């Protein structure tokens, strides 16, 4: 039982904090969110230099042998800084999927390039009518020549507009929602038949619909065992959930700081509004929610590296369901207590609120994860 960061982790935290303070102020972030790319290519290169992009990869593939707690630390600051770069998609989820499931050959081909910032990868695992169900896959892959031919559509693929590759879940057997019969393929953006419809998200990130029309890939594009792709995708998504939980905790903490500062400085009726008990008690509720959310994020991170799928899923779903509720409480009340200042674009408060809301709706919402956690009780 140990709740402390190591010295290396604290050093990394300090470096990132300095980077955000110096290069990623709120105004800069707003410019980036409005830019065509939607994030900073220069920042991405800096992440590579800092080792962030190879942090959770094994040393033999050029990585730093970090774990999910290291990722938690980074993601908490991604939250605080509202960083827009595709760290979650490329490093945590896709890098994690490759590390956990791919052949050594594919790891050698992909992980060092991800670590160097040379390529970006997005996970295409959700479909239009599937909501958050990872097993509801209609996108099909059939054998063709020595390889595979893929056709279908994936929805809200996070960070897809800048991705060089996609990891796509496709059905190679079974019926529409069967847990078995799903396989994972690595598809290059430039492959003939790949088209995207790109858009910004509500929180300033980028995403796209991904359409695959008779896209042919080689046999070695199959990642992991055929027909057993669901477990592979679920594991990557569980890693993503743990990371999103940490991002949410970073935002919740920052929003609480901003709100507390507002309560102490904003005066009405001749006194700071923080002297009113109605607001004091709500702020206390937000403080409690933040502490509890942090505990759940720690739990999700610690179990994210577990090889026991049931244990990992229980922790991920439990944390996501809990933190989603805490995020809603803190986000809505932070806006409320800022008054009209809370509902304008010019203050960071509304941006934090929107990002928290999108986190709640990503990789499974509160209802989805509460049900998943609840189903494991009986």
């Amino acid at each position: 039982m140990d709740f402390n960061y190591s010295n290396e982790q604290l050093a990394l935290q300090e470096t990132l904090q300095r980077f955000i303070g110096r290069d990623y102020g709120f105004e800069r972030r707003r410019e980036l969110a409005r830019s065509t790319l939607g994030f900073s290519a220069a920042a991405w290169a800096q992440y590579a230099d800092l080792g962030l992009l190879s942090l959770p990869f094994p040393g033999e593939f050029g990585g730093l042998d970090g774990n999910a707690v290291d990722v938690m630390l980074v993601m908490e600051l991604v939250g605080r800084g509202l960083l827009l770069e595709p760290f979650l998609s490329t490093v945590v989820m896709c890098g994690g999927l490759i590390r956990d499931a791919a052949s050594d050959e594919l790891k050698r081909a992909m992980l060092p390039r991800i670590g160097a910032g040379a390529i970006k990868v997005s996970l295409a695992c959700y479909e239009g009518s599937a909501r958050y169900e990872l097993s509801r896959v209609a996108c099909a892959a059939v054998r063709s020549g020595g390889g595979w031919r893929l056709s279908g559509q994936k929805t809200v693929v996070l960070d897809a507009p800048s991705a060089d590759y996609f990891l796509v879940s496709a059905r190679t057997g079974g019926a529409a929602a069967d847990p078995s019969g799903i396989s994972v393929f690595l598809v290059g953006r430039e492959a003939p038949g790949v088209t995207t419809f790109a858009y910004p998200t509500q929180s300033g990130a980028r995403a796209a619909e991904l359409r695959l029309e008779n896209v042919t890939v080689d046999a070695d594009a199959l990642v992991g065992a055929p027909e057993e792709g669901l477990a592979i995708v679920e594991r990557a998504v569980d890693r993503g959930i743990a990371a999103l939980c940490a991002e949410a905790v970073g935002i919740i903490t920052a929003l609480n700081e901003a709100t507390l500062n507002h309560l102490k400085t904003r005066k009405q009726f001749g006194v700071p509004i923080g002297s009113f008990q109605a607001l004091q008690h709500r702020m206390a509720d937000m403080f409690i929610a933040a502490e509890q959310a942090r505990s759940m994020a720690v739990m999700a991170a610690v179990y994210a590296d577990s090889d026991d799928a049931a244990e990992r899923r229980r922790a991920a779903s439990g944390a996501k369901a809990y933190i989603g509720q805490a995020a809603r409480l803190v986000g809505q009340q932070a806006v409320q207590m800022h008054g009209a200042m809370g509902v304008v674009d010019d203050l960071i408060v509304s941006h934090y609120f929107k990002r928290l809301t999108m986190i709640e709706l990503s990789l499974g919402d509160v209802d989805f994860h509460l049900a998943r956690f609840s189903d494991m009780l009986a």
Partner: protein
Amino acid sequence: MDLKYTPEEEAFRARVRAFFEAELPADIRDRMRLGRRIRKDDMVRWQHILFRHGWGAVMWPTRFGGTGWSVIQQHIFEEERADIGAPPQNAFSLKMLAPVLMTFANSAQQEYFLPRILAGEDWWCQGYSEPGSGSDLASLRTSAVRRGDHYLVNGQKTWNTFGQHADWIFCLVRTGTEGRPQQGISFVLIDMKSPGITLKPITMLDGEHEINEIWFDDVQVPVENLVGDENKGWTYAKFLLTHERTNNAGIGACKRALKRLKEIAAEQMAYGRPLIEDSRFRDRIAQVELELMALEITNLRVLTATANESRALGPEVSVLKIKGSEIQQTLAELQMQALGPDALPYLREALEIDWVADPEFAEHYRPYAPPLSGQYFNLRKTTIYAGSTEIQKNIIAQLILGL
């Protein structure tokens, strides 16, 4: 950062468990497991057993006869205690008064009272609240006037828990009227056999006698029973309340209650199948389990942080108190609700272990049913006692957030 117990801690858990299995008297265990009335004798017997094994005070340092265990070891002990169904120890003496005595009392007081607490020789109760002083505790009026070698104590205390069993009571009394109300309070120890003490039971909403009113009418208290300095009692009282509130997190008891709730929901039938298969009810269990998972980690984070920094617990225990008390209440509420119509019967005699139900009634009215509604009613107290939830939020707002 790691949430796993070390192999040493796991071995420790096994040792604690084995001791409980071997030493907890079966009759006490049965009463605890079925939620039947626990007697003073049960708690005293259990304290004697723990004392003989050297585990009379697991939260005390070794120099006072405690085990000197780490906070993690204490947490494991408490978890196993609750899980097996051993009674709680007297928190008023072991967890509330004792830290005050260790920190502020003179050596004569420490040498007399602490060993007696440890050995289970004295039963202590608390004299804090008064009819006009609840959340505004510092407004208390029970007076202690110095008369030579003793104080003359007059006034009334209320919401006193288990004073009917007590040998001693620790009291906050007013010794001064100058300055702010907090400045004239003293902390005294009073022998319950003293002439002039009258105790009157207050029946709780569950029909049980747990709390009392106590009157002090010219009660003589020797001056050597003053703890620390005269008029400094408020400092000691706050110190004590901080310890009291940590205990209120009650993680071990909540985990036990959650386990019980799942067992009950698996046995009760609804719509022709076990209640736990009804997702509407199961989701409510899931929700409170999440709260408890978070609180267990928050509790350990707070305890290990204070231990690592070698500092006393601070206002962060208010978080533990608020959440812990709410979770206890929710678990009791769901246990009651799981019974459905069987939550309605009020059978006082069924709270004794030897009660035998009418055979046809017993076909659906399970042995665990009798205490559940009463427990729900009774536990409404948890968000009120030891500083209500509203007072805890004031503490968080003022002492942590600086509002």
